[in-house]
């Protein structure tokens, strides 16, 4: 076992982690631990753009952007945070341009902008061009640009290091972060990183669904590590289903396709979004569009022999426009479906895409141990975190924005905290939990297989807690997850080695997914209303009287070792916008 000492340790090297690293490295001795090589992170899969009211192509301002973000999140957004997001968006985009990001340009040479779902002029009048983009590979360009600048700044990376435990120590009655425990993939060695500040930027947890746009590696490792150590998880019932995933595969086809004029059609060729969102049509918020698609499918207007999908129609757009603005997604259609988007519509279905919930933080990125108490030295940013700027439903292009605004904020705050703080003394045997977990799995002789349990988990999540939910379906999921957690204790792996043991890590990742799926289902069961991405058919209306509040889920361990989830709630921060009925 090795012990390392850094001022700041960042867990994850996607957009939020690297944006934080660029700031933290300038201010403190920083290490970035990442389970992948940095450029493999899923930020790179984001396509459509990054919102900022630059007003380069038409009138716009950050106040409109703030309003759209709050309305898009069905008023569960903390309004102070949304204001920061929209206001700092402009500098966030300009920062990236100065770092070298090759945005598409207007004829004047400024950054070009395009329409995106839920982004409007003057509080909902019409769609506005707010998304700054680089073809349909904006996330790729952000990831590359941030990595390039990490190289420039000499950021120190530990590639293929899996953080498996968060060390929290109680000092004079205050819970503080002391560092993390990591597993080195290449050697199987355990490392302790003692750090004054730790920033989680480890991404989402979409792999507990079967049809998902998420990478295989998005298994909620950061959320799970913190949750196991007593940190609550906020608003986990809110998960976004992106309307346009490639049918059955879930691969993302950007909303930018509809921003460029693409149209959703049912089996009769009807532009059905006109019925559900007369003003914004195909560019309504994602939760609205995904529900509309499934309504069409359920009412028998889906396409294909099984009527289980609809079409994204780009055939009326000029091929030059597709080549220039949507080259990657048209290639996906050709590669994976054998379809030519110039002439044929693309079969799509909603795909599990984004966790609105996560580790609760304030606007400085400081992690909260309850509704108000900060955990000194612990930070989170990006999809792993819940600030909450996305509330019950995130607007497209606000996640690339989130990682830049709050990644930067967390990087600065963490490094400044490290500069004025001492190391927290490590507990004895800080590595104990990880060592026992790894050894137990390596020595296990049980009969259950990781892949089978994961498949059953994904199937139950897709069937029961996706776009439409009821008490009955959620309870079915809760029971199934409990069964799978039981069976997980009897899981064994085949690779007993130390070198690049991905068999072992997949088993650990499955444990994380099971923990988080349980939190998600329990949180969803208790929220007896419909809001944003959480739609309860048995409670189809939003209930501001009882549920205008964030869910806070805590792991509780009884004296006999039994684990339960305790749900509590946190008020929503409202500043200038009163909740209204949401129409697009």
């Amino acid at each position: 076992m090795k012990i390392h000492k850094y001022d700041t340790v960042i867990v994850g090297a996607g957009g939020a982690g690297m944006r934080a690293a660029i700031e933290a490295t300038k201010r403190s001795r920083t290490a970035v631990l990442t389970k992948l090589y940095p450029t493999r992170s899923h930020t790179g899969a984001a396509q459509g753009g990054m919102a900022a009211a630059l007003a380069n192509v038409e009138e716009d301002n950050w106040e409109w952007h703030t309003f759209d973000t709050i309305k898009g999140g069905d008023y569960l957004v903390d309004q102070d945070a949304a204001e920061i997001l929209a206001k700092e968006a402009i500098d966030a985009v300009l920062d990236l341009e100065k770092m070298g990001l090759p945005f598409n340009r207007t004829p004047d040479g400024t950054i070009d902008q395009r329409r995106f779902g839920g982004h409007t002029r003057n509080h909902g009048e019409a769609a506005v061009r707010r998304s700054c983009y680089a073809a349909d590979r904006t996330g790729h360009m952000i990831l590359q640009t941030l990595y390039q600048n990490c190289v420039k700044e000499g950021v120190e990376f530990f590639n293929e290091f899996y953080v498996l435990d968060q060390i929290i120590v109680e000092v004079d009655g205050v819970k503080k972060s002391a560092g993390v425990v990591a597993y080195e993939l290449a050697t199987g060695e355990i490392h302790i990183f003692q750090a004054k500040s730790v920033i989680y930027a480890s991404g989402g947890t979409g792999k507990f669904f079967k049809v998902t746009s998420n990478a295989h590696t998005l298994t909620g490792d950061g959320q799970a590590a913190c949750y196991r150590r007593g940190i609550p998880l906020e608003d986990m019932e809110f998960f976004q289903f992106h309307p346009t995933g490639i049918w059955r595969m879930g691969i993302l086809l950007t909303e930018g396709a509809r921003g460029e004029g693409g149209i959703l059609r049912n089996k009769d060729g009807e532009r059905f979004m006109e019925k559900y969102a007369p003003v914004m049509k195909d560019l309504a918020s994602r939760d609205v569009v995904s529900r509309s698609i499934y309504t069409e499918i359920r009412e028998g207007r889906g396409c294909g022999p099984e009527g289980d999908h609809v079409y994204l129609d780009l055939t009326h757009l000029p091929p030059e426009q597709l080549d220039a603005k949507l080259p990657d997604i048209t290639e996906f259609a050709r590669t994976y479906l054998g379809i030519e988007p110039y002439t044929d519509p693309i079969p799509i279905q909603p795909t599990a895409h984004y966790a609105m919930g996560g580790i609760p933080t304030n606007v400085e990125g400081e992690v909260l141990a309850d509704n108000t108490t900060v955990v000194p030295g612990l930070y989170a940013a990006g999809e792993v975190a819940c600030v909450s700027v996305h509330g019950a439903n995130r607007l497209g292009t606000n996640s690339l924005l989130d990682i830049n605004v709050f990644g930067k904020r967390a990087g600065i705050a963490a490094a400044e905290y490290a500069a004025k703080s001492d190391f927290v003394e490590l507990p004895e045997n800080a590595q104990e939990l990880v060592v026992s977990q790894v050894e137990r799995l390596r020595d296990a002789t049980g009969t259950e297989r990781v892949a089978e349990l994961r498949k059953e988990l994904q199937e139950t999540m897709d069937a029961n807690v996706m776009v439409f939910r009821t008490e009955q379906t959620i309870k079915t999921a809760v029971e199934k997850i409990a069964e799978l957690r039981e069976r997980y204790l009897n899981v064994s792996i085949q690779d007993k080695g130390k070198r690049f043991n991905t068999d072992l890590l997949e088993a650990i990742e499955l444990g994380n997914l099971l923990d988080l799926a349980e939190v998600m289902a329990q949180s969803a069961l208790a929220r007896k209303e419909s809001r944003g991405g959480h739609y309860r058919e048995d409670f189809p209306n939003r209930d501001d009287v009882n549920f205008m509040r964030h869910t806070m889920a805590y792991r509780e361990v009884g004296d006999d070792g039994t684990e339960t989830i305790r749900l509590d709630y946190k008020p929503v921060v409202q500043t200038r916008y009163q909740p209204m009925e949401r129409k697009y």
Partner: protein
Amino acid sequence: MATPTLDKEDVKPEAGFADSPYITITLRVRRFNPEVSADATWEDFQLEIDPKERVLDALHKVKWDMDGTLTFRRSCAHGICGSDAMRINGKNRLACKTLIKDINPGKPITVEPIKGLTVLKDLVVDMDPFFQAYRDVMPFLVTKGNEPTRERLQSAEDRERFDDTTKCILCAACTSSCPVFWNDGQYFGPAAIVNAHRFIFDSRDEAGEQRLEILNDKDGVWRCRTTFNCTDACPRGIEVTKAIQEVKRALITRRF
């Protein structure tokens, strides 16, 4: 011309997306685990698969249902993250962008690690030398003078000039298909040159001369023998050889 890659297999993808029956394929995988043996061996796996699935899906079927020790890198599974470059039927490709039906599933499908980088286990190679070469070409924007308050202006034409090389996902398919790189690991390799090109031809950048000098080195662009393996291998369709030629030309003319 010596080429390590097979000719392009000219299999036209079928139109439409009708269900097709599962077929049985043989996946012939190069195995190596120094914890077990110092020698690499071939191992065959027979499995049922829908031909419209990816080679990555086939590898997952082996790992998840047959042999958990099979080791490879992967993440996004749709050709964006660059984790799963490997040699499939002798040709560098991404396992997640290669459909079974497109590579003649009637014969055993061979899967090996990419060449020229040390194999660590099964299909996993040591990527550090590859990323070191990348870091060595100053792969970041360098500007002088005061920063403007707003964005730097760039015309759409100037932006288009380096568009092709911005697509690189650093998967190493190009570099590890290059015979010069196989014989001399000191050679920067195509991917590093592509990433230098991305900045040399960016109108906003002011360190083109420095990058050209780096690539004027004995292990720089002049080692390129124009075999076009890199261009064939690139899963992003980047015209890699052309980019290298443009860097060579810029070195001679000092115009870029």
